[in-house]
């Protein structure tokens, strides 16, 4: 199905055509945010609260010789200084990561990346805590670092993880997907094969709110309350129980308002654990909030994939196969967050939107002396890297074949009638109809006109580029049988209660970092049971108040929790039918539903509204056998498959031939995320993601020098885009519902971040065609673009 939305794209007042259910309603959470009344972790102040600060390693690789805390302890406002040795005594020096590795909470033996946690000071105020860090004397014996992932496996390379028994190298894992023999055979007989090394450099999600926690351990009843910047409060509760030995029913994790996550707040950082230890040690609540440099230097980065891509095709442009070997830099600890089975996340969806005869990938993960992480920054578990690879390779092939890149894509799309489509690496794409989406983007862009303009400009020596990216996402992890994180299945719970007066509370397991859950989930319930969304409160982010679930990342909230919410609402609706039947003294099967009301078939004037039924449920009406006196329900939703949103993006850039400066002139984004709930919220997600994409393509990179010093430790060095770097976004959409999701929604939170970088880079490379440039790696800074124009493209790492 392809429809064009006839509503204006401006969410101005009055564009509120369907106030119940789906529609462009204003966000319920905004009044508190626009008034500055959001409540973030750093806004939490508890009586007697102390403050923690972390001493971090100044070097990337060094043996810890000695640490002297006496001077810091003598500071009049310091209550405790915790070192790795102290944690060792508690059995807490190491904590499990989300990838079944371990990570040092505080260094005991060796520093493994610059910025690693060495000691924790607890003091009466933040200033004293920070000052006391300078009073700790640490002696390091500096070791040669492994900075270049390409050299991590060299014989003789320093072994970073000598803490792991029997470790003699820096290898973490080898992983593959697809059929190698079949792929090699297709390559061997193909007319055309092109190869390219493609580097997706290390970037950082850099949420506006850095990470932090307030830990409050009550020594009397042994209860821990932990306010945390976490995208996954329930999973954190379980992990804290496993690490600390505090029984899980005594732990409450609260994730209040969160100022952006992008996957940066999925893992458990040493700082959170240290706040807990600090509270246990001092008997007082302890707050720890990292500063910007700490966030950029020590928390989960993203990408860092060095990909050798190869694409095979016939000479008339039928793409046959794709293969790639990837070297993945995971930093000093393997702490990536993804379903256990998939150490490279969902990278194996690198076949993209194309119908291929064969595909094969291998991924090798290695340790380096850099901060851990890898899966973050709205990447959908590495679909970002996958989409970037395939969309660059297709463009490179188009150049080789001298074909228009739009035409090449149109020729090779998986066709509508092939869905559900089993690709060559094990995915089953739920639904898709790519051509209309592609054609709509070309129409909005005025594609042919742009190509004409480009031709004219080229004749005058002006550099204009047009870049296309067509992405297929895989989001909504995931089916329990295939997907877990540390043994926790990726299903989500939801509970719905209708109060006697007909107002509702829905409790969900996912947590919002800005996605608008309080609005979207109320709208889903509203659509199902006919209560206005204003009358439905969405409760989230507090493990004591919500059912278990795995949290918000990988665009999974709508595909998983959104489904749970729709189903729990349907359960309540069915229950309401029985209660209405009792109230109307008729049989449930004689009732018919219209939004918000059950009525007698053939006699619409006789019926009961949800509010009346709610009062009846809690009142004195005699209820049928098996129906409790409430209007509540709960479900846990185990998704049968992932969902596969897609989109067509077109970027137009102008490059200054004298300076290499790139200006993004236009960006057209047509997204298909299945059924659309709140179009305004969707557009917000797209706008943000496109901005991320322009940032990554043009300026963002976390670099290291030869000693392993992080060169991206502040916003002066790690550049993120502003309103000045981005054009007015031109958004459009098509709707191809998911066949297995209760309301057909697919998720959209990461689509634009995943889909946009290749569009921008393809545009820059297209602009540089007169210089013979076939590929350049991100970021396309003025200097790197100029170097490419001189024939000197070099990888960023």
């Amino acid at each position, binding site marked *: 199905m392809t429809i064009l939305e006839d509503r204006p794209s401006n969410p101005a007042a009055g564009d509120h055509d369907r106030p119940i259910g789906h529609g462009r309603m204003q966000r319920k959470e905004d009044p508190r945010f626009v008034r500055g009344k959001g409540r973030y972790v750093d806004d939490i102040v508890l009586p007697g609260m102390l403050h923690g600060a972390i001493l971090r390693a100044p070097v990337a690789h060094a043996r810890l010789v000695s640490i002297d805390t006496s001077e810091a302890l003598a500071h009049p406002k310091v209550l405790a200084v915790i070192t790795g040795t102290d944690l060792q005594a508690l059995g807490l020096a190491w904590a499990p990561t989300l990838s079944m590795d371990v990570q040092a909470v505080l260094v005991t033996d060796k520093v493994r990346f610059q910025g690693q946690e060495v000691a924790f000071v607890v003091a009466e105020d933040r200033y004293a805590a920070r*000052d006391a860090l300078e009073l700790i004397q640490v002696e390091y014996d500096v070791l040669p670092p492994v900075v270049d992932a390409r050299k991590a496996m060299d014989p003789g390379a320093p072994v970073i993880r000598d803490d792991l028994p029997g470790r003699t190298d820096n290898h973490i894992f080898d992983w593959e997907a697809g059929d190698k023999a079949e792929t090699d055979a297709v390559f061997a007989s193909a007319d055309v094969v092109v190869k390219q090394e493609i580097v997706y450099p290390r970037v950082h999600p850099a949420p506006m709110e850095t990470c932090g926690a307030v830990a409050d351990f009550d020594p009397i009843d042994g209860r821990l309350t932990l306010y945390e910047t976490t995208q996954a409060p329930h999973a954190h509760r379980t992990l804290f129980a496993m690490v600390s030995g505090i029984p899980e029913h005594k732990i409450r994790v609260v994730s209040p308002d969160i100022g952006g996550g992008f996957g940066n707040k999925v893992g458990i950082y040493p700082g959170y654990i240290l706040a807990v230890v600090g509270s246990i040690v001092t008997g007082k609540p302890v707050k720890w909030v990292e500063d910007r440099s700490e966030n950029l230097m020590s928390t989960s980065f993203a990408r860092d994939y060095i990909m050798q891509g190869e694409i095979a095709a016939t000479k008339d442009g039928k793409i046959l196969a794709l293969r790639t070997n990837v070297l993945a830099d995971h930093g000093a600890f393997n702490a990536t967050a993804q379903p256990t089975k998939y150490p490279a996340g969902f990278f194996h969806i690198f076949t993209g939107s194309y119908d291929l005869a064969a595909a094969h990938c291998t991924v090798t993960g290695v340790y380096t002396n850099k901060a851990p992480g890898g899966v973050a920054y709205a990447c959908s578990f590495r679909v970002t890297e996958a989409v970037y690879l395939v969309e660059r390779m297709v463009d490179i092939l188009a150049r080789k074949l001298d074909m228009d890149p739009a035409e090449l894509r149109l020729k090779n799309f998986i066709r509508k009638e092939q869905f559900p489509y089993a690709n060559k690496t094990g995915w089953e794409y739920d639904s898709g109809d790519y051509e209309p989406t592609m054609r709509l983007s070309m129409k909005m862009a005025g594609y042919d006109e742009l190509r004409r303009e480009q031709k004219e400009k080229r004749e005058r020596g002006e550099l204009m580029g047009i870049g296309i990216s067509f992405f297929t996402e895989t989001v909504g992890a995931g089916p329990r049988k295939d997907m877990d994180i540390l043994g926790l299945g990726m299903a989500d719970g939801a509970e719905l209660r209708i109060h006697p007066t007909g107002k509702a509370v829905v409790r969900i397991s996912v947590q919002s970092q800005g996605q608008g859950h309080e609005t979207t989930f109320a709208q889903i319930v509203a659509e199902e049971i006919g209560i206005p969304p204003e009358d439905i409160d969405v409760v989230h982010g507090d493990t004591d108040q919500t059912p278990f679930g795995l949290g918000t990342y990988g665009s999974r909230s709508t595909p998983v929790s959104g489904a749970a919410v729709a189903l729990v609402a349907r359960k309540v609706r069915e229950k309401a039918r029985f209660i209405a039947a009792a109230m109307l003294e008729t049989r449930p099967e004689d009732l018919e539903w219209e939004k918000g009301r059950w009525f007698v078939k053939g006699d619409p004037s006789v019926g009961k509204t949800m509010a009346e039924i709610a009062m009846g449920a809690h009142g004195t009406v005699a209820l049928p056998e098996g129906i409790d006196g409430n209007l509540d329900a709960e479900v846990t939703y185990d998704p049968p498959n992932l969902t596969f949103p897609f989109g067509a993006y077109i970027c137009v850039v102008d490059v200054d031939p004298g300076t290499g*400066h790139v200006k993004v002139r236009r960006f057209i984004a047509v997204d298909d995320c299945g059924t659309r709930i709140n179009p305004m919220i969707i557009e917000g997600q797209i706008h943000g993601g496109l901005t991320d994409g322009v940032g990554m393509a043009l300026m963002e990179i976390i670099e290291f020098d030869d000693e392993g010093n992080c060169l991206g430790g502040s916003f002066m*060095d790690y550049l993120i*885009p502003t309103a000045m770097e981005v054009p007015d976004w031109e958004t459009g959409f098509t709707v191809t519902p998911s066949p297995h999701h209760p309301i057909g929604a697919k998720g959209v939170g990461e689509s634009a971040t995943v889909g946009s970088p290749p569009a921008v880079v393809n545009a820059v490379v297209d602009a540089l065609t007169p210089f013979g440039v076939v590929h350049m790696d991100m970021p396309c800074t003025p*200097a790197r673009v100029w170097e490419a124009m001189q024939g000197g493209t070099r990888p960023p790492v």
Partner: protein
Amino acid sequence: MQIPAPFDYVRASSVDNALALLDRHGAESRVVAGGHSLLPMMKLRLARPDWLIDINDLYELDYLLVDGPVLRIGAMTRHTTLLESDDVRRLFPIITDAEHVIADPIVRNRGTIGGSLCQADPAEDLSTVCHVLDAVAVVRGPAGERMLSMAEFHRGPYETAVAQNELLIEVRVPIRAGSGSAYEKVERRVGDWAVAAAGASVTLAADGTISKATVGLTAVGLDRNVTEVEAVLVGQVPTEQLFAEAGQLAADACDPLADQRGPIDYKRHLADELTRRVLRVACSRAAASVPDVTIQEG
């Protein structure tokens, strides 16, 4: 939250009071103007003054005055004031050009010309502009006032002639008839410090020949004007050929370092490219103020 090392703070009530406070608190005291260079360094604990002497109440240093043959700019004049001034735009478009690309509105609302020149960051834009415009710095201390040319004032990266117990009070820019000026910068992102930048000021004689020309560069390791260009430009009618020669001289004169903003050859290339561009614009602006002069193409 980044937290500076402990310090004491005092607000000065006048220039004399500020000088007295600097004297009293000695070597470890610093004045704070807009704070947009000093405070970030303090938060990173790269600067650790014991005393901060706040001069933001010294409104007597916040002025722009066309005074006969000079424009007088008080040291506490904010970037925004310079950016928005019509007098500045008319007389010295190079300042307006530069202010457009200095930081962002938040920084420009607080940052001052005095702080910029005293900070003397190698990528700082107004030092180049003042060099190009032959500005004079007025510095006051316990011994009274001194007038310094930019060559005397600006000693190198992060180094000026202003002593610990002195204040920069004013910047004086000579106004010359028949002049035009321009500034252009390449940055990785709006608000970023320069990868490289260039400024030029050109005065045309009535016959359309160049009677005076200065070119300055930012962030490429040259703390003076590209004096080499004068011999090539002066006495000539402006042409693209001439600009290209000047560009080459600028590229030869500079001494950039490789860093995250770019490699040496790129920065050298920018010295050339931007020199040509600013000369082109400066000449056409000068021509606009000299009747009957047009710039020839090619």
